[in-house]
């Protein structure tokens, strides 16, 4: 396996709900109510190899987007460490030019583009400011990048609202590519698009990956997209990674009960009629997650010690890890 371009060790991020300086002060003196803490990302450890695409999949609210922002370095961690090419983020983010190597494509193609700026400025601004291209040559550079994502040269002078959803997402990708990244994080990058446009954008991302060998973290709730695009997949549930394996292996032989249920819920093209089995129960509130294994209230094979012991991610086969107390390697 290659040297990892990115690694995260025990990454956690919690948010304090309803905090204010005054309430903190009152809590300090009264020891009254502890503020509610939401653990959006809870002890996540992942690595990403050079040129690899890692998929992160999970239901809404499981902390995928928070994880994306932690990896992109636009949100500070509560605990744990992030390393890019072996360097800790704290020193990496201080050098802006190098921090640019990590870029992100966002979910909402409209709100992720500043409506007041023309596409030329959106794409070229950071490249000029950080000295990626000289100011005099920025126009040609932007046109070149736009051509790479399949947008015509006259897009430069237009505003985001003058484009369709798929074109806007192409602008978002062009903006990330313009600063020559080495790692690209796609946070639900195709979720807001029509299915036909989704395919175009996925093909574009695959072309970019093939041409430039970019390492990618692709976050989605759509298993079909993940299967199509990713080398390895991490499955998240309530802020924790519950299973991590090669894509082919995960889809062929999922081991964690949650992954299995997710895969069973996936639509398949087959002639025979199939009974649709939704996952039992609602996803619990992340503000007050169940003790032990977060999944035990919905798990068909839960036992008493699932309610008490937190399962750690462990390797059950080479390159296949899961966090379940009851299922051993098969």
């Amino acid at each position, binding site marked *: 396996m290659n040297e990892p371009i990115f690694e995260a060790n025990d990454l956690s991020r919690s948010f304090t709900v309803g905090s*204010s*300086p*005054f309430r903190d002060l009152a809590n300090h003196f009264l020891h009254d109510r502890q503020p509610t803490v939401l653990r959006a990302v809870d002890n996540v450890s992942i690595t990403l190899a050079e040129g690899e695409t890692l998929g992160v999949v999970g239901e809404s609210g499981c902390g995928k987007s928070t994880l994306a*922002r932690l990896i*992109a*370095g*636009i949100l500070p961690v509560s605990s744990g460490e992030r390393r890019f090419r072996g360097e800790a983020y704290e020193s990496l*983010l201080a050098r*802006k*030019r190098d*921090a*640019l190597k*990590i*870029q*992100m494509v*966002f*979910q*909402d193609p409209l*709100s*992720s*583009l*500043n*409506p*007041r*700026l023309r596409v030329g400025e959106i794409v070229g*601004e*950071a490249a000029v*400011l*950080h000295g990626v291209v000289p100011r005099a040559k920025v126009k040609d550079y932007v046109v070149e990048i736009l051509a790479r994502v399949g947008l015509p040269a006259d897009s430069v002078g237009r*505003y985001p609202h003058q484009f369709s959803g798929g074109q806007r997402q192409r602008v*978002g990708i062009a*903006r*990330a590519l313009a*600063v020559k990244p080495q790692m690209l994080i796609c946070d639900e990058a195709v979720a807001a698009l029509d299915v036909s446009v989704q395919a175009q954008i996925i093909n574009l991302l695959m072309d970019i990956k093939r041409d430039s060998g970019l390492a990618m973290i692709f976050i989605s709730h759509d298993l079909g997209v993940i299967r199509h695009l990713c080398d390895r997949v991490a499955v998240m549930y309530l802020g924790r990674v519950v299973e991590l394996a090669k894509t082919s292996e995960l889809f062929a032989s999922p081991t964690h009960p949650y992954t299995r249920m997710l895969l069973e819920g996936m639509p398949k093209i087959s002639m025979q009629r199939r009974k649709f089995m939704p996952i039992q129960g609602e996803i619990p509130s992340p503000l007050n997650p169940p003790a032990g294994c977060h999944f035990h209230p919905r798990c068909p094979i839960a036992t008493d010690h699932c309610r008490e012991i937190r399962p750690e991610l462990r390797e059950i086969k080479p390159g296949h890890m899961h966090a379940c107390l009851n299922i051993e390697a098969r």
Partner: protein
Amino acid sequence: MNIADFQDFARRFAESRSAVISLAVSVLFIVCAVFAPLLAPTDPYDLTQLQLSDALKPTGSKRMLPGEEVRANIRVDGGTASVQPASPTPTRLSIVASPCGPNCLAVGVEPPDAKLASLQVRNLPAGATVEGGRKHPIQPWWTLDNPDSNQARITSAGPLPAGLTLLAIAKSLEQETGFVFRLGTDNFGRDMLSAILYGIRISVYVGLVAAGAAMVLGTALGLLAAWRGGVADAVIMRAVDFMLGLPALLVGLAILAILGNGVSKVVLAVVIVQWSYYARTARSFAISELGKEYVEAARCLRLSPVRIMLRHVLPNCMPQIIVLFTLNIAAAISMESSLSFLGVGLPLTRPSLGMLIASGYEFIFSQKYWISIYPGIVLLVMIVAMNLLGDRLRDLNNPRLDR
């Protein structure tokens, strides 16, 4: 905003007739303010032009030139007379004298068509008289009242003594000029039309400068609060709550009572009152913009926080701030007028509209209504127009209110 957007915006703006009218009125007032020195018939700041004789004249009355007094010494020597002007200041009239016979001297006034109130000749020797004149009971002074011919004929029984020096004093009547006070005059004899035009100039200046400075200050603090959050946010927003809790006029009064009056101090008072509105608006819109993904994208592109706030967040907050600016110009003008009306705003020598209303207030019950009424109407129209304009801009910016 490109041209098509602007055309669309203009079309939607024009759907409201009152908004178009108030835009026209506002532009008219701004033109008045900019070109006041060209439009005003007199310069109301030039105190040397004021005459108390013009004070409190009603609408449409003409300016009167006050009567003038001319003095000249006339030296009579045998058959000739020489005139030496003795007035302390230059005058329009001049005195001439010429012999009109052996024992006769004519004293006249140039130009001959000047209307005289009186013509007096002093130091006549005994035995000499002025035709048609009356003598002072004691002094040897002869006076002609309302002389038709502008000439006094001095006659005496014998020849006038050599080396005789007479003093001639001519007083002219008040004279109408072609200048009309179209809106009357105030109690200093100031032309109200000019004073109102210059008053608009001051009011528009104070409104624009004060609302503009408050916008810059308040928006900067609002953005700072939204960006830093935490303690900075709490401190700035509690200061805003504090300012909003105090009556604006009372704050202005207190500030001007300490600092004294003057245009820059009124501007300062308005800024201290108004910054809080901008801070609150800018903070709330900046917080909602900061939650959007383009800000995260800018962070991911490692742009500096200052650049993100000023180049990405601020332009997206500007429409709402500009609406507030339009409404606050009217508020600033009305606050300046209120402060001037209360006597703490602008100095008497540079009257604003509020000052003019205040100076006419004491005469309004003696039927000299024009001093207060006309500036009042102008102020009312100006504030209503700017409020309607701001309301329309606000409606256009709020998609829920727009159709």
